[in-house]
């Protein structure tokens, strides 16, 4: 088990190097750079000014030198400073990452509590009205983009009931209730989007498992249907669902970027959006690096979960 984790963590390194290259290069390929933006804001346009700013930010160097400087910084735990605010990227990440993590975790809880029971119900009542309703609901959730749903949730309650979701962020440890009442709406929207695929997968897997011989054995033992499901079917059916959740982790982060913007959640997603608009390279690179590590860690966690669910998998 330990050896497995070490192997997996070491295997992260080449992946991360590759990911960092893509991030670094693609950011610099976007038309318009940070200097253009700064110049536009300050109404100065001489090329001497431009060269001076470039040199002060280190952007006059060739791209590979910039890259190695950045990587060298990472190894020292320094992700550079924001080009605009001159604060360390690490500090910005430390402030915003927990907020996004909370949003993602809440969304995951919402997704699982919605998807797994409905998926099981749908499988047990295959081709009944309830199954059709559940499946239509999941199709709808797949089709509706969360930014649109998010906008509706912002607009319509205020028109109808003169109420809109709270938009003021309170840190969780300061006032958990205020924090949750703000976070819950984006978490539900994000969770529902995630639940669509998870529900369909749960349904499919449960149908598959319920056809297995060992389910017939369980019934022949005299077990009631709810015990057949809970004890004999669920664990077998959930193994592929766990994989799916791992695969959806990037989606969760992508969704967070949009919903944080709509609901003014000061998380990493909002920071990323602002950084992209401002071409704040170190911030963008830092966020992508953290996201990459997070996704790889989630997948490691998924693999470890297999060992727990499936006795044939031992590390």
């Amino acid at each position, binding site marked *: 088990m330990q050896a497995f984790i070490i192997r997996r963590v070491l295997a992260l390194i080449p992946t991360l190097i590759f990911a960092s290259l893509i991030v670094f290069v693609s950011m610099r390929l976007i038309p318009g750079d940070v200097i253009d933006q700064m110049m536009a804001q300050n109404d100065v346009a001489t090329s001497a000014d431009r060269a001076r700013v470039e040199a002060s930010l280190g952007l006059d160097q060739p791209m590979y030198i910039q890259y190695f400087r950045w990587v060298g910084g990472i190894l020292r735990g320094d992700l550079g400073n924001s080009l605009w605010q001159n604060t360390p990227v690490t500090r910005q990440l430390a402030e915003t990452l927990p907020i996004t993590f909370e949003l993602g975790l809440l969304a995951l809880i919402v997704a699982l509590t919605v998807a797994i029971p409905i998926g099981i119900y749908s499988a047990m009542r295959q081709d009944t009205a309830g199954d059709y309703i559940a499946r239509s609901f999941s199709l709808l959730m797949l089709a509706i983009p969360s930014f649109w749903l998010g906008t509706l949730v912002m607009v319509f309650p205020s028109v109808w009931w003169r109420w809109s979701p709270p938009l003021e962020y309170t840190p969780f440890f300061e006032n958990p209730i205020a924090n949750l009442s703000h976070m819950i709406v984006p978490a539900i929207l994000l969770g529902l989007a995630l639940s669509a695929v998870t529900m369909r997968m749960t349904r499919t897997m449960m149908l598959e498992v319920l056809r297995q011989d060992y389910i*017939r*054995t*369980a*019934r*022949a*033992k005299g*077990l009631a249907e709810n015990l057949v499901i809970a004890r004999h079917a669920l664990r077998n059916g959930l193994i592929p669902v766990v994989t799916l959740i791992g695969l959806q982790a990037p989606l969760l982060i992508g969704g967070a970027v949009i919903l944080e913007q709509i609901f003014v959640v000061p998380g990493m997603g909002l920071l990323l959006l602002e950084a992209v608009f401002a071409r704040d390279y170190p911030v963008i690179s830092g966020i992508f690096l953290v996201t990459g590590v997070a996704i790889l860690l989630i997948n490691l966690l998924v693999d470890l979960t297999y060992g727990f*669910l*499936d006795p044939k998998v031992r590390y």
Partner: protein
Amino acid sequence: MSEAVQSATATPLLLVEDLSVSFRTDRGTVRAVDSVNLHVDAGETLAIVGESGSGKSVTAMSLMRLVGDNGTVDSKRVLFDGIDLGALSEAQMRKVRGNRIAMIFQEPMSSLNPVLTIGKQVAEPMVLHQGLSWREARRRAVTLLQRVSIPDPEDRLDSYPHHFSGGMRQRVMIAMALACDPKLIIADEPTTALDVTVQAQILALLKDLTRETGAAQILITHDLGVVARYADRVAVMYGGRVVETAPAHELYANPQHPYTQGLMASVPSLDGDPGKRLQTIPGQPPDLANLPPGCAFAPRCPYARDECRQAPPPLEPIAPQHLRACYGYE
């Protein structure tokens, strides 16, 4: 007819009268089992023999009322140990399954749950039906595994099915079936998926254990060799009906239904002429969605007459304990 059946013993352990099972499918209603009459005496082994699609497995599953949502079971009565199983509620029926009647299935590879330990799976019926604690049930599971000759049973409790070979898994299935001391064990082709040498071990084990506990057994098989060695009585099924039933030795000595005769003739024999070709029954097994109005075997029967194509022949006694469903041929 049932009087003739019952004449052998006062009250059989299991008495099945007019059992029919049909399934709704895309091709219409399929009548898998049609007016089957059977009985099993306490302690005896009844073999149900037939080819695939003859309705033998469905008959077994319908006794447990486990035919699935698209199946309908009809019967005049299914009397087990004095109770009409057909009249029980689902909750009452669950108390019979795995407790009074236990089942062993064909595929030991897939019939055990891959994510639960052997100990848990063997202990489960005892927790369920006898109200034992898991700890106590586990302790008894050791004894059960010992009885089915699994080496080091104590150490194997925490093993998973994939640690076992096919024969060992079938032993586990048997231990599970014996857990609550059932009065009837239904073994649905218990050895079909196993090596020949293992087959003999498993069948001998089953025979010994049922003799020891006094449990009756329904042995479903298509293997006439198995029937000859392990069954007391035989019911031959064809096209969803019982076409002949007799004590095993009587059936071998004196098969009376043309289908049974065809089956017997198609068994290869060690002391026969090695150059002789194997006998086969011409034609195809019947399509259950499209059964002929008369005897299901008539299209393949060398003796079929007009009468045979009109209505299916009833199962009637032709000798003590020997019944056949045939209008006769001579």
